[in-house]
């Protein structure tokens, strides 16, 4: 099967094109770095089936972040039949840098100028036919979101055959000579042209040095590299880019025309307001208040949960299920396994649908709006200074805000951070102090009757986040990497994309959690039956005592380990039955929020960070959670604070 790989800078619409070609859905949004993993799908064009591969965005063939390395590796490993370089039309001069690099690497490139509609609006006109002639490769203009030009793109794919491009990048004579000298001494094949291998070596690319160290003439090559690198007072990568840019400007002469841009619209104005601190910070607070508190907290966790629980489950479904079980099943143990306290239905199924579904659903819906509008990068730049104090930078805001939805997803998204150090700090803080939407929703509802308790909870969590962040920034060696991020234009989110994205995420979440819920209820049921649960609760009683909590609370913590949200749901039941005072509820909420993330999150953590780091993090988290709960208890006693 022929392989088609989509590459290009972040946020140019590769995934939109992938979705169109394959009919599959991968997440699309309006911020750089949405795709952190490779997606594969199939597309049949005029009777031929192609394998289409979507890749995380790269700015150049020299990677900076983890996800960029993934793409570079893929380009070298997969012998693609067509590489579609997707670029942003209005920034064509900058984006052609990568096109020329891909051509230098000897790849079969098809150039796709996307976002043509935005380019026209900005006053940029591109003669695609002339560009195709000059470069000697097929060039297709599209506006993928509006489905313009995509059929043309398909046709070009089906008739594609690799030709030698008519354009050849020539650097200055000394560099060209060195490239020839190095290429002649290379023996092995690294999935890219010798010329590009030489260029990467010249630029000191680590990945290529790791591969070429066994080359027989590597010491000669290094001497050549050092000779030419030493002759410039600037970094060689910079020299190459400047020379390439000069070539691009020549290519674009007469092909790219700049005319007057159309007048600034409402979105441009709003884009500016959300970015400037005087207006941006109030807007940020409004977004958080409306989105998180009103929509997810009050509407999702309050209204929807009640509605589904009372109007649907209590009235219709539960009586039916219980009726069926008691009528047709006579075995007592089976009855309790299904509809008992820890039954598969009452604990597993009902929790998943009543409590988790509405909260997670509303969160993903809201998050999708933020993503697609292009608000998140603005958020990132506004909070950069704050995140720097935690040893991270503004980039961290994307995994952290996703963490309020699902910590497991958020840990995967930490791949967009630059260094391993930052990923460890982010994973730690995410697992410790960021409640997922289900947890947050339940806690907000539980504490909402006492604004004092809610305020204490929020301030206390914020403090722990700040202290833990500040300490980990100090303790883990290294310093935060510099912050840079493209600020995309604000775009009007499309309802269809938002809904499908929220649904896909919810589906993903459900497939992952429902089995865990059911297994958990079985495990809990078994340990309850065998008396193990009572034993565990007995053993851990001292801990509960320290925290001033009733014994049953341990059960909630155990549940909480299987799923964070599950624990929160258990807390809800315990409170509903009246066994907790508001003060205890507050301490329980704090400890539970901090407590070990759910099993799925630990699994992802191990996958991304390794056993050792994960184990250390988990130990730290349990420790901090208990201490923080105890400290709060002491403080409440100290101030003799009575919370009702």
């Amino acid at each position, binding site marked *: 099967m022929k392989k088609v790989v989509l590459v290009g800078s972040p946020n140019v619409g590769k995934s939109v094109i992938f979705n169109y070609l394959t009919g599959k859905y991968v997440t699309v949004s309006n911020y750089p770095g949405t795709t952190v993993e490779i997606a594969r799908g199939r597309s049949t064009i005029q009777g031929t089936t192609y394998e289409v591969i979507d890749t995380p965005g790269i700015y150049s063939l020299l990677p900076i972040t983890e996800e960029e390395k993934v793409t570079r590796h893929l380009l070298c490993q997969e012998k693609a039949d067509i590489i579609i370089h997707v670029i942003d039309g209005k920034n064509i001069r*900058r984006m052609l840098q990568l096109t020329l690099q891909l051509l230098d690497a000897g790849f079969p490139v098809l150039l796709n100028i996307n976002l043509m509609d935005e380019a026209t609006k900005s006053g940029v006109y591109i003669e695609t036919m002339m560009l195709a002639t000059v470069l000697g490769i097929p060039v297709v203009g599209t506006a993928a979101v509006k489905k313009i030009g995509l059929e043309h793109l398909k046709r070009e794919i089906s008739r594609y055959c690799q030709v030698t491009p008519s354009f050849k990048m020539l650097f200055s004579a000394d560099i060209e000579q060195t490239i020839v000298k190095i290429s002649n001494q290379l023996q092995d094949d690294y999935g890219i042209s010798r010329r590009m291998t030489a260029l990467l070596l010249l630029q000191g690319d680590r990945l290529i040095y790791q591969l070429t160290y066994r080359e027989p003439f590597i010491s000669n090559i290094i001497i050549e590299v050092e000779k030419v690198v030493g002759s410039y007072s600037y970094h060689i990568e910079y020299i190459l880019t400047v020379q390439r840019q000069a070539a691009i400007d020549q290519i674009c002469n007469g092909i790219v025309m700049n005319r007057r841009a159309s007048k600034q619209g409402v979105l441009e104005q709003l884009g500016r307001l959300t970015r400037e601190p005087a207006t941006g910070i109030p807007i940020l607070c409004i977004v958080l208040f409306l989105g998180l508190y009103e929509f997810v907290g009050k509407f999702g966790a309050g209204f929807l949960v009640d509605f589904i629980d009372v109007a649907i489950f209590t009235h219709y479904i539960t009586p039916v299920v219980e009726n069926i079980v008691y009528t047709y099943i006579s075995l007592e143990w089976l009855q309790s396994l299904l509809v008992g306290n820890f039954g598969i239905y009452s604990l597993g199924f009902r929790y998943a649908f009543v409590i988790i579904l509405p909260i997670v659903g509303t969160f993903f819906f809201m998050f999708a709006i933020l993503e697609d509008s292009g608000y998140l990068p603005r958020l990132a730049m506004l909070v950069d200074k704050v995140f720097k104090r935690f040893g991270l930078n503004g980039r961290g805001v994307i995994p952290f805000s996703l963490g309020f939805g699902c910590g497991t997803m958020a840990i995967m998204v930490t791949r967009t951070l630059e260094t391993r150090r930052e990923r460890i700090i982010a994973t730690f803080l995410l697992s410790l102090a960021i409640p997922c939407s289900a947890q947050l929703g339940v806690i907000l509802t539980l504490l909402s009757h006492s604004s004092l308790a809610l305020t204490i909870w929020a301030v206390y969590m914020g403090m722990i986040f700040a202290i833990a962040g500040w300490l980990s920034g100090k303790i883990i060696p290294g310093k935060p990497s510099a912050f840079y991020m*493209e600020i995309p234009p604000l775009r009007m989110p499309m309802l269809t994309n938002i809904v499908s994205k929220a649904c896909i995420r919810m589906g993903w979440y459900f497939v992952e959690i429902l089995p865990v819920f059911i297994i958990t209820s079985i495990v809990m049921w078994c340990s309850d039956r065998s008396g193990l649960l009572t034993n565990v609760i007995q053993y851990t009683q001292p801990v509960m005592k320290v925290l001033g909590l009733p014994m049953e609370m341990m059960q909630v913590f155990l549940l909480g380990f299987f799923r964070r949200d599950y624990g929160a749901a258990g807390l809800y039941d315990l409170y509903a039955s009246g066994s907790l005072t508001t003060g205890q509820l507050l301490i329980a909420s704090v400890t539970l929020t901090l407590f070990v993330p759910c099993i799925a999150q630990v699994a992802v953590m191990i996958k991304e960070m390794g056993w050792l780091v994960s184990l250390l993090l988990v130990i730290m988290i349990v420790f901090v959670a208990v201490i923080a709960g105890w400290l709060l208890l002491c403080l409440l006693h100290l101030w003799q604070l009575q919370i009702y």
Partner: protein
Amino acid sequence: MPDTISMVHFKGKKKVRVVRLLSNDPGQLRKLITFGILPGAEIEILQSYPTYVLKIGYTQVALDYEIAKNIMVTI
């Protein structure tokens, strides 16, 4: 030749031309050049707090002080 100063000296909106980049850290240099911040490029400083925001061509880029201080510009 007009004076060359670091762009962080400008507060508020300003159109400037890049003269050279000071950093020797290849990672930092790469970040700048991938956005087209190269000698001769015209950039517009849109804001300087809480991070710097530049406009290069049709792209807006946010940069922190650590990177921005290495961009030497002239008016």
